[in-house]
């Protein structure tokens, strides 16, 4: 453990803003790359279900 206290950890020796901004952006990018395909899949499946229903009705 490098930091004596929690406020030290947040401050990062005066560079807290840069370090935390970087990690926040990284978190956002990673989450987007997981959530986006997950939402996409939901939409694709619901579209397919709707299409299948329509086809079954018409036949």
């Amino acid at each position: 453990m490098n930091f004596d206290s929690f406020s030290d950890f947040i401050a990062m020796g005066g560079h807290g803003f840069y370090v935390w901004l970087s990690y926040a952006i990284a978190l956002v990018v990673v989450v987007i790359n997981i959530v986006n395909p997950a939402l996409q899949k939901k939409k694709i499946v619901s579209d397919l279900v709707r299409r299948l229903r329509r086809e079954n009705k018409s036949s």
Partner: protein
Amino acid sequence: MSEKKNWMPRWFYQLASPRWSYEIMGKLLPGFAVAAFLFLIAGTVWALLFAPPEAYQGNSYRIIYIHVPSALLAQSCYMMMAIAGAIGLIWKMKVADMVAKSCAPIGATMAVLALATGAIWGKPTWGSWWVWDARLTSMLILLFLYLGVIALYSAIENEAMAAKSAAVLALVGLVNIPIIKYSVDWWNTLHQPATFKLTERPAMVPEMWLPLLVMVIGFYCFFAVSLMMRTRNEILVRERRASWVKELVEKQ
């Protein structure tokens, strides 16, 4: 041709089947997701809490644990996209096309992440948000190459045609990347005073590079997860008329 079949591993041919690929990726996904989660969490905690501060840059160097893995990933993702595209072109393998298409957005976001962290790191180190450093500039051009590929994908409506065209473009880019890198490095030494060297750090101690290794592995696992999710989506869309997809949807 029959000889070729013998030396090519079986899974290579099975990969050509969208259904088999969809199922195998579904099986692999949870494992990679767990690994990515564990490695990324462990790496982040290690990087932020336990890695020692750097002699010259203090704690701001901790950005390296994001910057380096994302930059590595952005580069290898482009290579993977081009190689998958080439496999799609040569063997007419649909799944390879889909993998190549799924690589593009991930690689582009990774390039953005590498650029953003590089810029943020530049502020405390160089005193400005942007410096025309050779590596940052190369990364910016890599991002442009990704954006070109994505633009080409979205401009062509026919899926098969878009995949082939983008594969050609990605291959042309792959040939160009070393030339671009060389020219930018060379241009940079001409324009930049040597004081702006961020990359020439003293050799890292194990306490510093071990968490970096963990983060790199974590990023690659995350890439595998995101890539498989996107590729599975792509398979569903392009195989929507196949009976197995209909059965799959009916089950849900």
